[in-house]
């Protein structure tokens, strides 16, 4: 490694003009830090260091590493660090994700330690032998140990620590005709060490981009990943089940791809940066996550083609490059991803972004966790109706995807909800007094009107960050399946539908036994007010409704009605699963809208989306 080199004589360096090692060493700073803190880890909360009693490592079944976790947040994510600390010390019990609901209280002390230090010390700690791993929080999907959605990742899997890279994510880089290709190539070479990058380029730009990339990749510096000047570090052990990059390359070559690897000094643990062109759409590189500094280039004919190809790559973020800003924004708008950069690949996280992601973990205050060992009261249920028809569910989901409800502007959606509320009000005019049905209809109307008003005012937030600004908005999940997993009636839980529809989701509802009538009435009112066909489908549910829906992999799955814990292993194909508790799940309750529940519903019905727009120079 470069750090171990003896200094060369000036005469030799004058001739070769090599860069030399980076400044500083890793060991001394880390030792000093540990010594000053008594070599024990604890909680750092609100300026106070709370030492854990003793320093025994704690078993954490859900945490992949099984050891005490040390979080070093990026300085720009300071707000995130406070939230993590809150959750760890005294907040919600599900700080480690939906899957680990067995803890009813705060996390055990010493398990999750939040330390706010300057980045150089953070990097130095990474090299200390007693620190087994470090997680950098960031991105639209924060990954904590124990989270069901993320895998632990180091500072960077196989590259240098420079910048705030996508860090382990799978990112599509879309290059349009009017892109500054030099800057694209520089950004790709700089980001190669931190994420899986897949380049989707218009044919007109492909040749020049390939040539520039060959030059940049050939100039990458291999070395110690802790050295800021390193472009590419050694390849660490891949996660189990991940193929070695050589295996993927061999497969790509057999399919006719062309591979360029610069003649960099390597061997041992180093894998050279590799440019792959002529990749077939069915190539494993494009279908599976890969490990290593591979850079596939996929040609497309038009921006529409680029979007279609990108959607099939399983990426979590995208970077769109074009000097034609309207074209770039148009492409960005049509990518249903949580994070999109325009003319950038490395960008600091906006203060609101991680907060949005962090809120996806945790329980609302009106829905306390059940005491361990108890189950909710089972109510008697009528005979189940016919189980849901697989073909009907598949058709409903397809129509929901085609309905395009999410692309209708917010005010137009609000108008539909208002119309439905008016139609429902007309329907209930003839009902007697104060019976349950009228009460339910009244509450449903109120929900429709409330969410219509919310949609008329809803916008996003603009965060100023170094080098530009980030537009933070919320986007619908897509197609949400709503099923009943328990005996509670549908009526109260129908109030879940207005927020989901208002935020642009299409719904496929498998109504519980005896509940299809009210659902169909609601649908009729909405369609009459202008809801597109397919945006809300109501089908008879029954035994196995949850399993049937999950098999068709909607974008979200809500399991209402109370009932026992679902079989989580059978829900693996669905990304957003929510089991609404308390009154929202159909439980008893007087209030139509418990305080704070609207925000909860908004967060459950949508995902954060950040659009990063560069502007000016960084300060």
């Amino acid at each position, binding site marked *: 490694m470069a750090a171990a080199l003896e200094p060369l004589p000036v005469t030799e*360096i004058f001739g070769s*003009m090599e*860069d030399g090692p980076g400044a500083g060493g890793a060991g001394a700073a880390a030792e000093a830090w540990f010594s000053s803190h008594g070599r024990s880890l604890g909680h750092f909360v609100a300026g106070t260091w709370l030492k854990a009693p003793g320093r025994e490592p704690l078993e954490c079944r859900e945490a992949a590493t099984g050891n005490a976790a040390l979080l070093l947040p990026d300085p720009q994510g300071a707000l995130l660090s406070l939230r993590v600390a809150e959750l760890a010390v005294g907040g919600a019990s599900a700080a480690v994700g939906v899957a680990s609901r067995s803890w009813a209280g705060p996390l055990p002390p010493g398990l999750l330690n939040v330390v706010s230090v300057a980045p150089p010390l953070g990097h130095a700690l990474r090299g200390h032998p007693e620190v087994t791993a470090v997680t950098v929080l960031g991105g639209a999907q924060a990954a904590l140990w124990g989270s069901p959605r993320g895998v632990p990742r180091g500072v960077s899997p196989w590259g240098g620590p420079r910048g705030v890279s996508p860090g382990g994510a799978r990112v599509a880089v879309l290059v349009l005709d009017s892109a*500054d290709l*030099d*800057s694209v190539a520089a950004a790709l070479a700089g980001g190669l060490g931190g994420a899986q990058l897949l380049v989707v380029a218009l044919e007109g730009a492909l040749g020049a981009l390939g040539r520039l990339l060959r030059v940049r990749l050939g100039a990458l510096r291999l070395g110690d990943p802790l050295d800021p000047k390193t472009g590419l570090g050694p390849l660490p052990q891949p996660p189990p089940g991940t193929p070695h990059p050589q295996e993927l390359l061999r497969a790509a070559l057999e399919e006719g791809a062309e591979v360029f690897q610069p003649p960099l000094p390597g061997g041992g643990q180093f894998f050279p940066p590799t440019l792959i062109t002529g990749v077939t759409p069915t190539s494993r590189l494009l279908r599976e996550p890969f490990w290593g500094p591979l850079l596939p280039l996929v040609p497309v004919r038009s921006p529409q083609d680029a979007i279609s190809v990108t959607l099939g790559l399983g990426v979590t973020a995208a970077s769109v490059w074009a000097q034609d800003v309207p074209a770039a924004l148009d492409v960005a708008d049509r990518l249903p991803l949580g994070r999109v950069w325009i003319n950038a690949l490395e960008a600091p996280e906006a203060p609101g972004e991680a907060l949005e992601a962090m809120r996806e973990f945790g329980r609302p205050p009106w829905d306390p966790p059940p005491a361990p060992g108890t189950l909710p009261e089972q109510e008697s249920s009528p005979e189940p109706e016919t189980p849901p028809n697989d073909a009907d569910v598949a058709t409903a989901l397809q129509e929901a995807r085609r309905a395009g409800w999410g692309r209708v502007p917010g005010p137009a959606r609000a108008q539909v909800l208002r119309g439905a509320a008016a139609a429902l009000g007309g329907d209930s005019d003839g009902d007697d007094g104060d019976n349950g049905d009228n009460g339910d209809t009244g509450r449903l109307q109120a929900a429709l009107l409330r969410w219509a008003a919310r949609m008329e005012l809803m916008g996003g937030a603009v965060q100023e960050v170094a080098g*530009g600004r980030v537009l933070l908005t919320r986007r619908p999940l897509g197609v949400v399946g709503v099923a009943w997993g328990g005996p509670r009636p549908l009526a109260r839980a129908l109030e879940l539908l207005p927020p989901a529809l208002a935020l642009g989701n299409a719904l496929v509802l498998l109504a519980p036994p005896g509940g299809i009538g009210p659902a169909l009435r609601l649908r009729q009112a909405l369609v009459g007010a202008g809801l597109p066909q397919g945006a809300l489908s109501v089908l008879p549910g029954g035994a196995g409704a949850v399993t049937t829906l999950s098999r068709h992999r909607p974008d979200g799955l809500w399991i209402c009605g109370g009932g026992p814990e679902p079989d989580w292993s059978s829900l693996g194909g669905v990304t957003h699963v929510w089991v609404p508790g308390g009154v929202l799940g159909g439980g008893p309750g007087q209030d139509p809208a418990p305080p704070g529940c609207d925000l909860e519903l908004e967060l459950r019905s949508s995902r954060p989306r950040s659009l990063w727009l560069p502007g*000016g120079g960084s300060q």
Partner: protein
Amino acid sequence: MGSVLASWRRGPELPAHARRDRQGRSLPAPPGSAAGGGELPAAPIMAGRNPGTKLELGWISKVHVNRPAVVRHAEQIKKWRTVKGNWQAAWLLKAVTCIDLTTLSGDDTPSNVHRLCFKAKHPIREDLLKALDMHDKGITVAAVCVYPARVIDAVNALMAAGCDIPVASVAAGFPSGQTPLETKLAEIRLAVQYGAREIDIVISRSLVLAGQWEDLYEEIRQCREACGEAHMKTILATGELGSLPNVYKASMIAMMAGSDFIKTSTGKEVENATFPVGVVMMRAIREYYWQTGNKVGFKPAGGIRTAKDAITWLMLVKDELGVEWLKPELFRLGASSLLEDIEKQIFYHVTGTYPLLHDLATV
């Protein structure tokens, strides 16, 4: 003599009656001539000239430059690519060999030009070079840059010092370029006649701002012819070109017209050499090289005062163009006070302390 530079080219020998300047002073006879007293030691030949190409407007018709991305890239190089210890010393010495030591002041006189030339030959104290084992590597600056009226003084001073560092002269209506073309050409010819072996010309920015690329090409082409055997550096005055795409296009036009170097600024603009501008110009140089096979040099000038800046420029060149550009034939730093800071850093590297005022010879 061992200078790492090149370029004493034998100019045409003028008849005796013509070897006088406008003040009637005798012009120096070209070295190596009979009047000049014999042969000089052979100096290394400078890199091949850029012959230029015919005007290719297609090369500049689809230029896309993303300013924030370029700025970010330059910031990253500046932040992450640093050198320490022996590496820093070596890189600073390389920077010294690439400096065009410049004085372009209204109050320049033969005496300060004379001191500048002495400094050009001895940019770093001999004992410091000895400590680094670099005393016998011919560490001198790349050139001395003065106004046309001071060329003779510089040539005489360098001849008296017995070194073959070339004299570069600004010309063509420096610094504004707002003079008629005929005047510009006459000034160039005069500077060459006085003994300048490198000419830094200034373009008409109005042609760039108006998009008159053919006229710009023609202007530079004529200046190139007026330079004769002298190397031509074309100053783009990037701070006055309005946008990075304009910088790129002007760079390409200047190279097509036969510039041996493209230079960022006169040093007299409000905004002189900046790293993003340098990145764009270097990308143009690379593209021109890929199109034609001809290497053109790059010279940032104006506002380069610290050793750290010098190293950042070298790093940018290495990143964009490669190590082969890190030599005086293809890279220059236009600077006047930079040398002082470099010498301070080298003094610190060798002795462990910073120098006092009297420790270093100032110009």
